[in-house]
């Protein structure tokens, strides 16, 4: 069994239901996302179009994150899922450097790497991933790629040449496919991130990796003296700070 995902971007309407369902199901902390839906505007007014692209871990067959993890915290499950054992993770961030899709984050509560696991705990109990259940238009198609009669296999067969993966040149062989995507939606270099033009905010880069209140000294002292759990206030302060984008190290 090799589990895979397919997102039909022609169906996705950007409701972010999957994003919220993932957050709730996996208790993903503030300032981090396992699954996100990116809005991209194409064309020039009045001939414009908005596309919605859900982005999550690609569960690659040749996963660079699994290869670089020094302690096997990232590992393959028999069903093809690239799973993570946060209890073993040392927080070196090697996986964050290796993942070409930017799908791994440093959990600000545990200070260990984390990512989408295709809801491995739900799969184990015979349930579908939370994002699949939440999608109102069934744009997320999930199933066994090795079963010719599974929904995902039939969908891939039906759309054949229109099925794409992100960054095929990386030779990671992702188990996550898109239908209805194009270079401008799937290639991060083909679209611009312009400061101040986001719909609801103008924050483009996080200014911290993991917990921003957990400095180098805290990393050594935390097991003995405990550590304050980050709260909403600290993240709101972070979000409303007037630090410029250049200062944050992005472009």
């Amino acid at each position, binding site marked *: 069994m090799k589990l895979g995902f397919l997102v039909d971007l022609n169906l996705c309407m950007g409701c972010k239901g999957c994003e919220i369902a993932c957050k709730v199901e996996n208790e993903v902390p503030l*300032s981090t996302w396992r699954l*996100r839906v*990116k*809005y*991209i*505007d*194409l*064309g*020039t*007014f009045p*001939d*414009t179009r*908005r596309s919605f692209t859900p982005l999550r871990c690609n569960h690659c067959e040749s996963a*660079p994150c699994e*290869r*670089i*993890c*020094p*302690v096997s915290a990232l590992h393959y499950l028999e069903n093809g899922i690239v799973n993570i054992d946060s209890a*073993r*993770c*040392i*927080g*070196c*961030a*090697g996986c*964050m*450097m*290796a*993942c*070409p*899709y*930017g799908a791994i*984050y440093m959990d600000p509560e545990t*200070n260990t790497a984390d990512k989408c696991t295709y809801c491995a705990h739900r799969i184990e109990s015979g349930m579908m991933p939370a994002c699949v259940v939440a999608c109102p238009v069934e744009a997320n198609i999930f199933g066994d790629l090795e079963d010719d009669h599974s929904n995902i296999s039939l969908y891939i067969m039906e759309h054949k040449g229109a099925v794409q993966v992100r960054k095929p040149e*990386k030779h990671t062989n992702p188990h996550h496919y898109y239908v209805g995507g194009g270079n*401008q*939606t799937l290639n991060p*270099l*083909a*679209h*611009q*991130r312009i400061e101040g*033009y*986001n719909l*609801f905010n103008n*924050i483009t*880069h996080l*200014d911290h*990796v*993991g917990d921003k209140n*957990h400095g180098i000294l805290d*990393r*050594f002292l935390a*097991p003995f003296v405990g550590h304050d759990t980050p709260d909403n206030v600290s993240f709101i302060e972070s979000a409303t700070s007037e630090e410029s984008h*250049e200062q*944050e*190290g*992005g*472009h």
Partner: protein
Amino acid sequence: MVENAIHATQAVVTLDVPIQGIVWGSIITVNMWAKSIGTGVVFLAAFLWFRHNKEDMPNLRWAMPIIAFLALNVFLLFTLIDLHQPYRMINIFLHPHWTSSITVGAWLASIFLGLISILMFIGVGEKFPGVPFKGCLLTKFGRNNGPLYEKLMPFLIFLAIPVTTYTAIIMAQSSARELWQAPTEVMQMMWAALMAGSAALIFISGEWTKEARKDLALILALSTFFSFGMYMSEYFFSFKSSEAEAVLAFVHSGGSYNIEFWIGMTLGFIIPFFIAVGNMKSDNKTLLKFAAILALVGLFLVKDVWLKIPQMLPLS
């Protein structure tokens, strides 16, 4: 809206979550910089002992392991403090995953530090019998096992090669960052080790013969020249990958780290090269030490830039 201002074929992100900025920062730069010194002095010592009599560099036997020991401890300390869960570093030894260059490097660097420590006990034990205190078992062990120094040295030189270059393989395994390619990074690490090693030994070469110091200047000149050449060819001619090209186009256009890069290049590579070449004819100890300081500062700045710039690219 922004759509008024962009070309019809362009696309613009109008809603997304904040993406990660720089994940591996200056802590990792210190890590790489200190490791270059730690392994570089071993290469340089081997070269000098091959070319000259031991009497030409009387303090090299005990000073080289001390410099390497200190530099390697800085390197390991900064490796540790960069971890978000530093106490779990032990997992690398309890649950090693051998496809990871981080694992291989941690093991090799630990063995390398162990061997350097033995050399240090021998060197210090022979030279300073009362240090750190009379009857110290470690220096006593060193004093009684002097011939072990020469026996361990070949293993140390051999081990210094993977310890120097494994970071380049980590960078190559970081497949999200196209700017870092294994062949060039491996050679850059080797040149950096020779550059940092020669610069570090210049500070203890005051009592050496002129010929030995001339060799140090030669290695400094060669390593700065070839390293500079590699950086320039990468900086201007990385056309093979769209990601590397995009990163460098941003830096070329005066973006972040452009100034730091050129200051580093000028201080660490161009000026030390000319001083070192000049010093091979006229033996000016003070000027050579100045070149060594500049080389170490410049190397740090350039390594810092090269580490950070590919991380500014949005990956998704």
